């Protein structure tokens, strides 16, 4: 297999918690803890987990919008942490991001034309006339009228705004787009259109997508591979089919059981998790999921689970996955 486009090694991001008059550090929010994955050119990795589990932080840390506390991000084999300012500017053309709320991520004071020309302005590409033409081309590419350049973001519907956000992301012909909950805020019908647009662009431009979402059903539709995050850690990663057909980690199983089925008559066992997500400031010892896991034993609280290989396409970080699989088959 060729070298991966993006390789994340042991990425860790802690946010210091400060308190008191002198703002002394009293602890850390363990937003991302020892996260590793790889992503190949033109492929899609779905990163799933509930709100606050650190999946957006992973995206922002890859883009260096947040500085990693530890770990490495390798893009085309280069360690992004060692790049100079000027080198980063060049890399920015290759990695882009689409945010969840386009009303927030598009500057309300700029026209769509200004928004779409900005990437070219920043990277000093083209003349003003060319940029204007390019901006119009981009609009057409994402299925909006060319005349939209003179309008403002809030004149568009949510789905149209997200198209503008996508147009901006593909302006510099990147190799990787991080979709940070890019479709989570949209209506189901609009969501399908946007997902299809992303897949079409991926196909045409050989884009790699890091698809961050809290909803497994969308991720299943787009991803080659899925990583499930819980409280800053990846607990299971597998190819898209494996994760739905035979989820191994109890948390993944709970998530998969929550996917709505289009068949109302079908019986299913919904696994409902008890309790709340523990505080990421003092995460639970051992397996972070043990406080909510129905199958937890003493070892789960004592020892951090190692990665174990289920199949060549599926790895899980759980002490008891073998026994649990047996239980389920019974």
């Amino acid at each position, binding site marked *: 297999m060729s070298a991966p486009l993006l390789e994340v090694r042991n990425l860790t991001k802690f946010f210091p918690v400060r308190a008191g008059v002198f*703002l002394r550090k009293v602890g850390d929010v363990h937003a991302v803890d020892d996260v590793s994955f790889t992503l190949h050119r033109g492929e899609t990795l779905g990163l799933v987990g509930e709100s606050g589990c650190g999946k957006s932080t992973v995206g*922002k840390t890859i*883009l260096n*919008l947040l500085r990693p506390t530890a770990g490495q991000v390798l893009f085309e084999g280069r360690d992004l942490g060692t790049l100079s300012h000027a080198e*980063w*500017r060049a890399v*920015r*053309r290759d*990695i*882009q*991001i689409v*945010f969840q*709320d386009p*009303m*927030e*991520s*598009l*500057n*309300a*004071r700029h*026209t769509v034309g200004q928004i779409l020309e*900005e*990437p070219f302005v*920043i*990277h000093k590409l083209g003349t003003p006339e060319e940029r204007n033409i390019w901006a119009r081309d981009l609009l057409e590419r994402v299925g909006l009228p060319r005349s939209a350049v*003179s309008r*403002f973001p*809030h*004149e568009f519907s949510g789905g149209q705004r997200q198209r503008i*956000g996508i147009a*901006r992301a593909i302006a*510099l012909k990147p190799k990787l787009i991080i979709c940070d909950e890019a479709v989570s805020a949209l209506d189901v019908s609009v969501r399908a259109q946007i997902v299809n647009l992303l897949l079409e662009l991926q196909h045409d431009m050989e884009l790699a997508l890091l698809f961050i979402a809290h909803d497994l059903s969308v991720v299943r539709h787009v991803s080659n591979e899925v990583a499930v995050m819980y409280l800053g850690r990846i607990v299971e990663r597998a190819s898209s089919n494996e994760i739905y057909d035979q989820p191994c980690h109890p948390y993944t199983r709970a998530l998969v059981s929550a996917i709505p089925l289009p068949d109302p008559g079908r019986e299913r066992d919904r696994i409902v998790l008890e309790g709340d997500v523990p505080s990421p400031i003092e995460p639970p010892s051992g397996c972070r999921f043990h406080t909510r896991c129905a199958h937890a034993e003493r070892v789960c609280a004592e020892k951090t689970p190692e990665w174990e290989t289920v199949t060549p396409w599926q790895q899980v970080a759980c002490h008891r996955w073998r026994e649990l699989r047996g239980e389920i088959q019974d």
Partner: protein
Amino acid sequence: MRLRPQTVKQWRRFRSIRRGYWSLLVIGALLALTLVAELLVNSRAIVVSYEGSYYFPTYAGFMPGRQFGLDYDYETNYRELAAHFAEQREAADASGTQAPGNWLILPPVPYNPFETDFRDDAFPPYPPSLSTQHYLGTDVAGRDILARLVYGFRLAMAFAVILLLCNYIVGIAVGCAMGFWGGAFDLVFQRLIEIWSNVPFLYVIMIVASVIVPNFWTLIGIMVVFGWMAMTWYMRTSTYKEKAREYVDAARALGASSPRIVFRHILPNTISIIVTFIPFSVATGVTALTALDYLGFGLPPPTPSWGELLAQGTANLQSPWIVTSVVVAMTLVLLMVAYVGEAIREAFDPKQFTFYE
């Protein structure tokens, strides 16, 4: 350039608030008129036609009396010249000869704010009178009150606007930097500003005024040194807020530099806060200058000033036209400025335009 629909809405909303809108128009008109105050309130004639030639002494400058056939070399007194021309015409009519055809146009208020109009038969202050064209009377030195009000207004507004610009430039720069960089820079500047805000400003002015005679620019300088802090708090908070929004992250992901993010993204989004504060800062500036002049620590005499008139008026309550005119003028101007401010604040009220639908 196309205006944002939101800007258009804000302007419409501003216009729909009648008293604010009209106050803005009136203040704008007054300011425009004061730009040509020399043509309206001045001792020099606008046009003099003398022996076939035309003279424009308003902007042409000094013209000796002899130039117009008077028997002195100092600056022509155009009111006397007008009387002189009238006598000439009367003499010509009486003797039946051809009049020389000399004439001049005086400004509606034919006095400048510095000249003292002494009369042989009375002591100033003179009460308002149409015949002497002191429409609001004179002050204790015999200077025309209307002339001093007009030039005092111009000076006070210029002072307030320049002060505002300087204060905002420093305040916005520092506040924005505090919000943008945050961390230790923010912390240190916060404490510095808190300490600096506690320096008793009036004492400093008194000390400075006792050492040097303040002029327009030194006064602005002192007031900026002690007045730039107010804006920093608002800018700091709103920069913090804007910086955390995703469009800033998006710009950064595109590779935008920090100056670009500040000037193209953050500042334009805080403009409504700045605009909302402008009228109130103008009012503060006018009041501050008036107060300092009233106390005698402001601009040196004989600068036309409302504060100085106010001091004169309160000291000479037996001549009520002095205090009445300045108090009425000041109340009206501050009221109108406050109305404009109120209307702007109303028009920019974020409750009207939420970003989320």
